[in-house]
């Protein structure tokens, strides 16, 4: 079973995503903040990380930076889930430098399509 780490400070969203991924047969791990997320990431070494950007404390950029600084971390696939528009956020541009495998705006995506993307990244057929 593939382990997927979800780092998202919005509880409701976190729950919904985790539920859905569980239904799809994945093993979702929920983290509400960046610090916790990092610890869990290094401990659990998930197959995929879904990372929010805007969070109190350590934000998504800092998490990704620290992740990529690690030997294992630099290779783990990360999908950025955010509600920031790419066009007007410097932080988004900075994040892209740390090579997330994908970037999507939550409110523009159906949850089904998010699942599709996850499967695609993990190389799982339909």
């Amino acid at each position, binding site marked *: 079973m593939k382990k997927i780490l979800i780092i998202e400070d*919005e509880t*409701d*969203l976190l729950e*919904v*995503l985790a*539920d*859905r991924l569980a*239904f799809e047969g994945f093993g979702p791990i929920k983290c509400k903040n960046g610090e916790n997320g990092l610890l869990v990431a290094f401990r659990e070494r998930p197959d995929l990380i879904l990372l929010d950007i*805007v969070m109190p404390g350590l934000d998504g950029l800092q998490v990704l930076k620290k992740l990529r600084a690690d030997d294992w971390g630099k290779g783990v696939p990360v999908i950025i889930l*955010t*509600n*920031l*528009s*790419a*066009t*007007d*956020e410097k932080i988004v541009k900075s994040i892209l430098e740390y090579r997330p495998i994908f970037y999507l*705006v*939550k*409110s*523009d995506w*159906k*949850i*089904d399509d998010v699942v599709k993307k996850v499967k695609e990244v993990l190389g799982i057929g339909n």
Partner: protein
Amino acid sequence: MVILRSRSAFNGMKLLTKIFIIIISAGVISIMSLFVLTYFSIRPVLTDATGENLLFLTKETVNKIDRLLYDRYLDVSIIAQEEIFANHLAYGGDDRNRLNKKLEEMTLSSGPWDALLAVNRKGEIKISSFSVLDKINSKNIKDYPENLVAFEKAISGQPYYSDVLKTGYSGKPTIIFAAPVYARNEPGRLIAGAIIGNFAWGAVKDILNDLPGHAELYNREGYLVACNQSEDDSEILSKQFQSPELLDKILSSGHNLKIADDDVYPNAKILEASVLQSGFLSFKGLNWFLSYGLPTEKILAPSNRTALKLSLLILPIMLGIFGTILFFGYFFVIRPVRRLTETTRAITAGNLKTRARVHGHDEINELAHSFNEMVDKLESLDEAKTDFISTASHQLRTPLSTTNWSAEMLLGNQLGRLNERQVEYLKRIYRNNQRMIKLVGDLLNVSRIELGKLALTLKPVNLVSIIKSVLDELDESIKRQNLKLRKKYSSGHLIIESDPDILRIIVVNLLSNAVKYNQPGGEIQIKIEPTDGRILFEVSDTGQGIAKSDREKIWTKFFRAKEALARETDGTGLGLYITKGMVERLGGRIWFESKKGKGSTFFVELPVNNKYHE
């Protein structure tokens, strides 16, 4: 009117030009004033000084002439006392040639004499200075009337001198001097003859020639005796002094008189009439007067020359001063101001990071410093705007996406089956959530457009693939309404340089409008026409068309035409406003043509570098 016009012309010039004009004008006015002031203040001083000078000059001239004539008188008297002449005249002799020579020597040494003659009692000219001999025809003094008078006087024992006579032996004006020659060794002082001298008139003229200006010698009858203005002597004793009243005044004044009389000598401002008072001439009642006029130009010539030299000297000095002022003006005022203007332009163009250079503490640098502070404020305001947009978008979208996915989950299969009515209501929730999401997106675009925060990232973009992807998204609606698609563009790749996100929004808006406001079974036509440096993108529908009254309003925020509202279609009324803003951001134009009941065509022209290839 002229003043107003030239004032506005002046205002339009550059600062440097203005300063230049002011300085040059000031300089010119100063020089001219200097000139005028100097000239007119010096003139009276000069003329006065010259007047004093002239007074001295005329006195001197008078003295010279006086001495000249007195010396001639003495000469004759001395010659008359030469024994050799006395003896020859009294007793005759063979030494005539020798005596001629002697007399000639005396002519030369005592000169200026036209002729010296020694005449005996009978009137026979016995001895003469050589040069005269050739010219005289008769050897008797009686044949020369003017000389005869002198002779007779001398013979009677009186030394004699004449007034100016028109001609002597030489045909020139002359004065005749005569002195008696006494025979020696004779009791009772017997007069043997006389020495007669014809004075060479040129000598007086020479003295007058030394004077600058116009000098004339007149006798007391007012006849010209000598002058320094003409070469010939034709006017001597014929020309009269022009003003009889003046003549009287001069003669009665008895001393030097300064007269300014333009009529006598045109252009002469100083007229010195000096009555010959001292010495021989007035003593014997000759009473000539010297009328001396100096033309004004001559007086002022030196000062004019000086003025010219002065202004030529001043010119380089003034140029030096102008140059320095301009130089400093440029470096301390104009250049910093120009630089500040350039900085302002850079900031207006959008580069808020620019700051003006501050070098010191003078007024201009203070301006630059407070300008920089202002830009700091602008920059922070600008950042605040950006922050607001991103914060607002994020805060609004977060709960919306949660609701979205929650509804999707419920509508999915995993949480258990729902009855039809529950599904219906859930769909309603979902749909309206979608509306809000769209509205938030639209509002964000509107604020980006209005706050000028629409960033452009130009890339090579495939327009055809954008259109294809949008059509895929709209596929369901297109099929539902049974719309026919007509594609009037080559299926080749049309790569243009543009911003993909912005271009996509434009395509989405136009195509979704074409679907939304179409008739069932209608048609959508998409046309792309690439031309020189531009592309023309057309979307046509067969919908209701747009009413004439709505033509302008259709571009405004939240506007929905009656027909659109009547259709009960969803819409925020922001679509066309955003599309227009985005087209304009890409530097293009958007317009439409519409026929009521027939349909509408929207045109978008974008200036892009396009490469069209199959």
